[in-house]
């Protein structure tokens, strides 16, 4: 007996070094491990680097292609006189063959040469390389003046590209990091480390840690990208697009944050339902579909006011559709707030359901766990 008390005292002494892990400190530890593990992968930096490159490409490339003043080669006095009224870079050459050569070599966008057939009222012909040099032609043409009754704040192309860009960012992050969450869950199941984890910390802490860890990782990236976007656009001199995009980001970022967490909880469940990486495809297909909705929905219907209105309230597509609508001036002031409230409620419900499904399926190995079984298995 005395031996036993001494031994127990001994073990209790070692126990003084322990403070115990509370739910939140366990959650924090899990989140920390997940982010550390992920940040160390090459794929993470590659992916992030591609986004940075894409943003600068979007800011700068319009100046490189298409934009800027066209250059033309002019042959003969008539041509020179005609192009003189434009702001084109004009290169004077002596004969049409030489002008054609310049067009072929890409040194000039088009050539204006004397019209030998006599069919041109202007007395000149325009020579392009592989398609109609429209900007040159329109500069040389006469067009009636146009009045637009309801001018759009930004032009159609920029609107589409911005909507497409937001959808793309949401899609890429949701799929890329959602898949990472699911994989991380499956890895723990597959290696059976989950058994130790479950015996050590609450299951809810495991789930919360994963969602929080990956979410923070994604938000940090989105924040950096959101800061780089104005820099890239300013560098490209696209001030008009810049003001539009900064407004878009104002709504996009909070919607994105909530939308991502909503999907993250679902990705985690999708991972918990299977026991091997190879089976992830089947269990993630539903979540994948939910990510596809905003992506293709917005891209295909960005011009359809009714569909966009519906999409802007559906929690899965709201993060993209609502910011786009707000910017088009289609949404009333209160609309984004209502959409966000719906999103928050869905998010809360989803996390609660996900916690139960995750607990119910985490320790089930073998074939894919049916949702109903996961639901009833949760203790």
């Amino acid at each position, binding site marked *: 007996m005395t*031996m*036993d008390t*001494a*031994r*127990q005292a*001994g*073990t209790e002494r*070692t*126990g003084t*070094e*322990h*403070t*115990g*892990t509370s739910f939140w400190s*366990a959650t924090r*530890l*899990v989140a920390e*491990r997940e982010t550390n*593990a992920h940040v160390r992968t090459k794929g993470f930096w590659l992916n992030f680097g591609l986004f940075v490159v894409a943003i600068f490409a979007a800011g700068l490339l319009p100046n490189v292609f298409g934009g800027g003043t066209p250059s033309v080669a002019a042959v003969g006095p008539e041509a020179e006189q005609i192009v003189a009224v434009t702001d084109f870079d004009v290169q004077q050459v002596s004969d049409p063959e030489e002008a054609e050569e310049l067009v072929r070599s890409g040194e000039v966008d088009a050539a204006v040469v004397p019209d030998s057939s006599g069919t041109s009222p202007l007395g000149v012909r325009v020579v392009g390389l592989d398609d109609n040099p429209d900007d040159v032609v329109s500069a040389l043409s006469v067009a009636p003046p146009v009045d637009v009754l309801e001018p759009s704040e930004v032009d159609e192309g920029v609107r589409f590209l911005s909507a497409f860009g937001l959808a793309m960012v949401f899609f890429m992050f949701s799929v890329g990091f959602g898949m990472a969450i699911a994989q991380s869950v499956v*890895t*723990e199941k597959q*290696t*059976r*480390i*989950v*058994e*130790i*984890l*479950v*015996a*050590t*910390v*609450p299951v809810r802490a495991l789930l919360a840690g994963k969602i929080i860890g990956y979410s923070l990782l994604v938000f940090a990236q989105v924040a950096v990208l959101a800061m780089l976007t104005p820099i890239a656009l300013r560098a490209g001199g696209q001030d008009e697009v810049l003001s539009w995009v900064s407004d878009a980001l104002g709504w996009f970022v909070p919607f994105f944050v909530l939308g991502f967490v909503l999907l993250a909880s679902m990705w985690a469940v999708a991972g918990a339902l299977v026991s091997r990486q190879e089976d992830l495809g089947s269990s993630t297909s539903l979540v994948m579909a939910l990510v596809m909705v905003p992506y293709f929905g917005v891209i295909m219907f960005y011009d359809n006011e009714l569909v966009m209105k519906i999409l802007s309230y559906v929690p899965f597509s709201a993060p993209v559709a609502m910011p786009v609508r707000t910017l088009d001036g289609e949404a009333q002031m209160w609309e984004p707030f209502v959409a966000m409230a719906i999103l928050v409620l869905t998010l809360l419900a989803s996390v609660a359901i996900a916690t139960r499904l995750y607990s119910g399926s985490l*320790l089930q190995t073998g074939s894919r766990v049916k949702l109903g079984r996961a639901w009833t298995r949760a*203790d």
Partner: protein
Amino acid sequence: MLQVSSVSRSFGDLRAVDDVSFDVAPGRMTGFVGANGSGKTTTMRIILGVLGADDGAVTWRGDEVTQKVRQRFGYMPEERGLYPKMKVAEQVVYMGRLHGLDRTVAQRNATELLEQLEVVERAEDPVEQLSLGNQQRVQIAAALVHDPDLLILDEPFSGLDPLAIEIVLGVLRDRAARGVPVLFSSHQLEVVERLCDDLVIIAAGAVAASGSRDALRAQFGPSRFQLVVDEDAGWIRDLPGVRLVELDGPRAVFDLDDEADDGAALAGTVVRSGQGERDQAVLQAALQRGPVRGFGPVVPSLSEIFKEVV
């Protein structure tokens, strides 16, 4: 002291664990032995709260096992689990911190354990680059890093070479010596035999026998002896109450029946009662025939006990 009291658990129609009760005492290494599918792993998972019991209770120092208490247990599941891409030391430290250690203590304990287990030179390598045997050592370090109050180890020796078994054994004995109750399962009976103080034998989900190793030996081992003489020992089979098990010229292994014929004359000596005297009677008989080179009881091995109770 860990007490498992009348724990039962069914999976569908299969009663995997049926009214299982046993204790794991402080400072004792308790071997948990049973055939595949006999319920060892299920019982261990119930102790760790990974599985719920349909019936019965597990108590630690007289109280219910809560999450907080369980966090002070060390567990090594049968199916090993480590993060393949995480570095060895980092992994062990992480486990320590999950169990509530602060970073410095976790680091100190991890280094100590990896040294003791002789894998410290691999501390900075990802786990997936280690051999299976070394991964197993890391697994043990992960189970021990937080100086657990109780150790539950499912097949801690499977997959280890003899040298590694000795190393791991040393570490576990060290823990037991500090007063930690250790419950470990194994189907390597000779290892369990050498290692355990107490034994729980489980068959088809129920405890077939339990108690200290020596008590079990006395209880279940047949009273078996070995006699070595100069000449052929075949005559021994004619003695009453003796059942010859093995005869190899001058060497004979025999059992003494519990119910020997009372009053049977044995070469002039009367065997009355008790094995203790009857074995002496056999010795006397042998001595009368010539020199005896060896005589003594044959201690039953665990596998023999196991065969008997299962």
